[in-house]
């Protein structure tokens, strides 16, 4: 037995030490989550307009074009439950908060970060935001959340090549989707719409997610109402190749539900910009994300909408 345990320990130790060292390096690699968390820790009391949501917000809103003090706290694939968690975490510090901007995309009400292919991002909220929202031990570790090759690439990129690992501006706007590198709108329209369409929205699984999301959305609006904060819900603009391939039932439920919920509260307005004619092909990075050109347009448009609302 002694011999067996000794061997197991000898074989395991290098792996264990390697993993701990890698975890240390990864946690000390700057990233968008830590960056935004630090910003919120320091500046949340000054924020007047808070942008939440997924990649549609992350790449779609440049706070520089807002007349109020604005911060973009969205992240790629951030679902409503994490929007609400962030809001709750800083609720006592949001002393000047006047407006929240929250996208209700085609997939928002039927999606949840934990349930999708991007679930590996859950660890970012636990490790960097300090939210304890997962039962899975994997979500508490950088090393275990991703494949080792992905982790090695991240470490090499930062520590060896000296690349920046932050992909947003100081105010949280995602800068990677540049018009110069725009993707094929026809192709991405098909693939993105397929990826965002749930196979059966009436299944128990998606009905449960839908009910949870409705509850969270109402909770966010009610929180805003209680704190005299206005909330602007909007369905982001998308290119026609994306729109044409959407499931009409899923889309209709999303739009009608958002509109119905919003109409119940005085502090809420809902704008459906999905087919907004202001946005043309050159505004898009891919069929459902805006480039820096489109982001400027959307930011200006929403800023005007907020100012008029006042």
């Amino acid at each position: 037995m002694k011999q067996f345990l000794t061997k197991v320990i000898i074989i395991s130790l290098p792996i264990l030490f390697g993993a701990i060292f890698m975890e240390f390096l990864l946690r000390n690699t700057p990233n968008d989550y830590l960056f935004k968390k630090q910003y919120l820790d320091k500046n949340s009391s000054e924020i007047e307009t808070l942008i939440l949501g997924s990649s549609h917000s992350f790449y779609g809103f440049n706070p520089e074009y807002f007349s109020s003090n604005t911060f973009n706290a969205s992240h790629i694939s951030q679902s409503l439950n994490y929007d609400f968690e962030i809001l709750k975490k800083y609720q006592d510090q949001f002393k000047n908060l006047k407006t929240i901007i929250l996208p209700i995309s085609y997939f928002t009400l039927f999606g949840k970060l934990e349930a999708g292919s991007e679930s590996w991002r859950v660890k970012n909220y636990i490790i960097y935001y300090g939210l304890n929202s997962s039962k899975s031990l994997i979500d508490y570790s950088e090393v275990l959340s991703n494949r080792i090759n992905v982790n090695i690439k991240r470490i090499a990129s930062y520590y060896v090549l000296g690349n920046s690992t932050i992909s947003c501006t100081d105010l949280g706007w995602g800068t990677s989707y540049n018009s110069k590198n725009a993707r094929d709108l026809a192709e991405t329209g098909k693939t993105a719409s397929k990826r965002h369409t749930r196979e059966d929205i009436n299944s128990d699984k998606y009905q449960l997610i839908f009910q949870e999301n409705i509850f969270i959305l109402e909770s966010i609006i009610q929180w805003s109402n209680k704190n005299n904060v206005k909330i602007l819900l909007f369905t982001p603009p998308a290119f026609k190749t994306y729109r044409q391939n959407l499931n009409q039932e899923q889309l209709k439920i999303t739009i009608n539900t958002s509109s119905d919920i919003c109409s119940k509260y005085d502090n809420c307005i809902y704008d459906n910009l999905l087919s907004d004619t202001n946005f043309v092909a050159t505004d898009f990075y891919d069929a459902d994300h805006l480039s820096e050109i489109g982001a400027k347009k959307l930011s200006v448009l929403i800023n005007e909408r907020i100012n008029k609302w006042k």
Partner: protein
Amino acid sequence: MLFNSIDFAIFLPIVFLLYWFVTNKNLKLQNLLIVVASYVFYGWWDWRFLSLIVFSTVVDYTVGRKLRNEEKQLKRKILLWTSILVNLGFLGFFKYYNFFLDNFITAFSFFGQEIQGNSLNIILPVGISFYTFQTLSYTIDVYKRKLEPTKDFIAFSAFVSFFPQLVAGPIERATNLLPQFYNKRTFDYSKAVDGMRQILWGLFKKIVIADNCAEFANQIFNNSADMNGSTLVLGALFFTFQIYGDFSGYSDIAIGTSRLFGFDLMRNFNFPYFSRDIAEFWRRWHISLSTWFRDYLYIPLGGSRGGTLMKVRNTFIIFIVSGFWHGPNWTFIVWGALNAIYFLPLLLTNNNRNNLETVAQGKLLPSIKELSFMILTFGLTVFAWIFFRAENIGHAISYISEILSLSLFSIPKFAGMSRALTTIILVAIFVLVEWKGREGQYAISHFGIKWKRPIRYAMYYAIIIAIFWFGGKEQQFIYFQF
């Protein structure tokens, strides 16, 4: 709890240390620890369904005790059928209720009769098909007086719920596993090391081979309407290796884990894709289920004795029931029937036991003839897997129709082709290692055993690195759904 999870990586050492250092002096305590650990292992998934396991355990233990003292044949039969009905009743309700209901409604509507029926929102308890069959083997063997009924309730509970094989087999026979709970286990160094090696290989099969193949198999099967014939062939091949890596990987981890605790489980896979005919394939694939059906269904039905019609009937029954065991879907039934069709010519011409030895035993390469038969058998198996994987019969037929079209000769095309190439290379290496180790219990059981320690350790590290390199988030095992 999944074998490929961090939870299990913490759970296993704790149980191992308690087993060998705290409870080792007392056999009853050691068995009790296994029961508690097994219930924790199962309850991690859903503790509510533990009640089913406990109920099955109590029923079969009681039936076994009563059979011991009962001499009247009629009463013995009633006891046996009580056990069968309780166990198959649970299985039937949780697994097949909605299937039968839907098919009855469809059948009646075909004849113009509209009947109402409410399908239920039933969650299938993980592993129910496995532990039901395992515990049934006990009652049947006791009824047939092949096994002395146990007086030890703890040992029996441990036999029913033994965590390494509780949720996906191997489906153990009471005659093999139960007596092992009566005897004191002593720690065997070489057995434990071998167990660790088998666990490592099982994890490799699951995480590196199965999970990577799954990504492309799912993508191709889920979007088959948009794919050309050659891509669909690739999809079927990916699924072929996915299901083998997934299920045989699970079995390897189960057997290896059992060895750490001093138990020997039956072998469940014996390099099935190197089979030279379908009969050989079925002697090598999911052995514990095939032999279960052989012993408790095929032989009682008359087996291969009797006339041709009897042989045909029995063969179809065993294969179709075996298919249906996998789940309430016509695709599994067709998969079973297809295998019966493959198997029958061999049985009727008495060629079903031609290939009992390992292919090319002691040789580096197979003969051209052997290779041809291996490729033919593999091709038939891949074809049958299409039905197994398809969502429904219509999906399978359209999948096969596209393969049989001219698009078969076009270049495969799907998202992530370059990553798929890496997976294909991994599968090729895997097949080579399996071929090299085909005479052992599992591929690396003797692989590098005579190498110097540093080289051998380097090989283990390479496997571990591959597991972390190619592994993603923990994925369910396919057979959990059966």
